[in-house]
């Protein structure tokens, strides 16, 4: 359905070029749940924005983003608008900024369908109630009359997800949907996304920095670092037998509530510079397993991992 091919995203800034995404390719099929995991500066959010045609003005995207055969990067804005409203929906990190504080919930939900599907008031409202039921908003009828500030943070994110579902999209891009929320609310929202996905057959791309959230939700995981894919695998093997030093490091660095405390194993060093297009493994400067050739060549993604060292030799 969605197929991203050798996507590159660059930004022109006052201090020169920033290479945010460097040759990333992946596919998402109908009804699939894919997670894109990365830390800040990994380019994960820029990828979502590129798919939605929402990149900032100083950005350049190369490569192809194919949506049912059409390249979204070259689509005229009017076409892109229609796809954005009806076929691909995005859920942002901060629910507050996705909602208009001066509009009642009803208007925010119905506006899109009235505009893009030509639904009447009554039909649109019926759709809104149906969707609010799907995202488990109690007393939906009363909530329709409310303004955003009258609702709690968790409720906001439910409304935002409801907005995303209004046009029955085929794909939802969820960009850090729970990062701004408390753990108890996060658990509810993740469960909700998972139920919605199951009931409506929507594909979901979950973009997050939190491996814990991924483990309970997705079937397939892409691990990004420095704008490149480090590892791509099904969830279970990725967590059980991580095959890339970065994935291993990331998993070790998460403090586990259950495990008795030993020393956390940190990944040394700082996030990568993005001033130049990578010509060597971007993780090499921080990698405990790096050898001389890691600092000279750029490993390709083969067999789901982009690493020069064989799995057996990793620490």
């Amino acid at each position, binding site marked *: 359905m969605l197929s991203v091919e050798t996507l590159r995203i660059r930004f022109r800034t006052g201090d020169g070029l920033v290479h945010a995404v460097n040759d990333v390719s992946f596919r998402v099929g109908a009804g699939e749940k894919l997670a894109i995991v990365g*830390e*800040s500066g990994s380019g994960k959010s820029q990828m979502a924005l590129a798919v939605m045609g929402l990149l900032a003005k100083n950005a350049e995207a190369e490569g192809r983003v194919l949506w049912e055969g059409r390249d979204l990067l070259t689509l005229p804005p009017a076409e892109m608008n229609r796809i954005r409203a009806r076929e691909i929906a995005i859920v942002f990190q901060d629910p507050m900024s996705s909602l208009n504080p001066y509009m009642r919930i009803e208007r925010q939900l119905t506006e899109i369908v009235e505009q893009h599907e030509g639904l009447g008031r009554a039909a649109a409202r019926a759709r809104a109630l149906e969707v609010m039921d799907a995202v488990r908003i109690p007393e939906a009828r009363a909530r329709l009359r409310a303004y955003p500030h009258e609702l*709690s943070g968790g409720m906001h994110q439910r409304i935002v997800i409801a907005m995303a579902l209004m046009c029955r999209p085929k794909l939802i891009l969820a960009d850090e949907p729970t990062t701004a929320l*408390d*753990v*108890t609310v*996060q*658990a*509810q929202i*993740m*469960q909700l996304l998972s139920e919605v996905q199951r009931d409506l057959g929507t594909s979901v791309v979950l973009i997050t*920095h*939190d*491996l*814990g*959230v*991924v*483990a*309970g939700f997705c079937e397939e995981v892409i691990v990004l670092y420095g704008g490149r894919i480090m590892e791509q695998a099904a*969830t*279970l093997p990725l*967590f059980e037998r991580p095959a890339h030093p970065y994935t291993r*490091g*990331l*998993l070790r*660095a*998460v*403090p*586990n*509530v*259950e495990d*008795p*405390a030993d*020393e*956390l*194993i*940190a*990944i*040394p060093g*700082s*996030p990568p510079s993005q001033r130049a297009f990578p010509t060597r493994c971007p993780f090499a400067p*921080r990698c405990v397993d790096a050898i001389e050739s890691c600092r000279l060549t750029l490993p390709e993604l083969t067999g789901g991992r982009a690493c020069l060292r064989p799995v057996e030799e990793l620490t």
Partner: protein
Amino acid sequence: MLTVTDAHVTFEVAQTKRWPWSPPGIVHAVNGVSFTLKAGRTIGIVGESGCGKSTLIRAVAGLAPLAQGRVTLDGQRVDYGSRASMQRLRSRVQMIFQDPIASLNPRMTIREIVAEPLGFFRPEMDAEARRDAALAMLDRVGIPATQANRFPHEFSGGQCQRIGIARALVAEPKVLLCDEPVSALDVSIQAQVVNLLKALQREIGLALVFVAHDLGVVRHISDEVLVMYMGATMERAPAGALVRDPQHPYTRALLSAVPVPDPRVKVAPQMLEGDLPSPLDLPEGCLFRSRCSRAVAECGAARPPMVPTCSGEAACIRLPAPA
């Protein structure tokens, strides 16, 4: 060495007033929290956003007004109105902050930032001694002295937090208050900073108050954990016991919701239904009861006192019987 007894913090908020002279609303941010911190130990404070955990330590530091309650440092009561007492508090209790970049003045070099406290707490040092001490401290937190003339924006978030730690520790305080010090950092960097704090603690016998919303991090660094909700303590227990065998219904709900990075573990979060009470108008009785699955009528009678559990204490009248 640091004891906080029955701390209350309130704020006035200008709610939509009927008249200019009608009284302002009063937010009850912290409602009677007590804890004791021993030298070289770590107490963790967890809770969700708005539970008053940051306000509590800001009040201890003197950055927020303590409405009621008592703070004692080395057996001496801290008088927040007296300059001398405050100076004594600040020379022994320092703080690091949530936003590593915003906590450094963008117009000062990092050497100036780290040397600044020495001008206040070590007036006997001359400029050169201050500079050397600042460089040594920067080196200790892993920032090479060659970079000391740079400005904060030239460093990453994790490095900025290291610089913040250097500033807090350069005058050798005994207690470090940590206000969500790693929540703005990436996982891989988070671990670096946590390890650095632990190493410094071992070396100089520092006591830490570690406030965070991430139970995993708090569990990892703390000896003892305090769970807060709506400005009140729900449960206090040694870190291991709290995670293994939570007593209070809120602690249980919180723990059940923590995502586990292991796809084989099926997380079954207990859903917290119901609304939070308004901090402008606190209800009688247990503050958690509006969302508690175990609540009964008696829970609304009076604020539950802390009762001992097998390893700590909890504020609940319906604790499971000790096994």
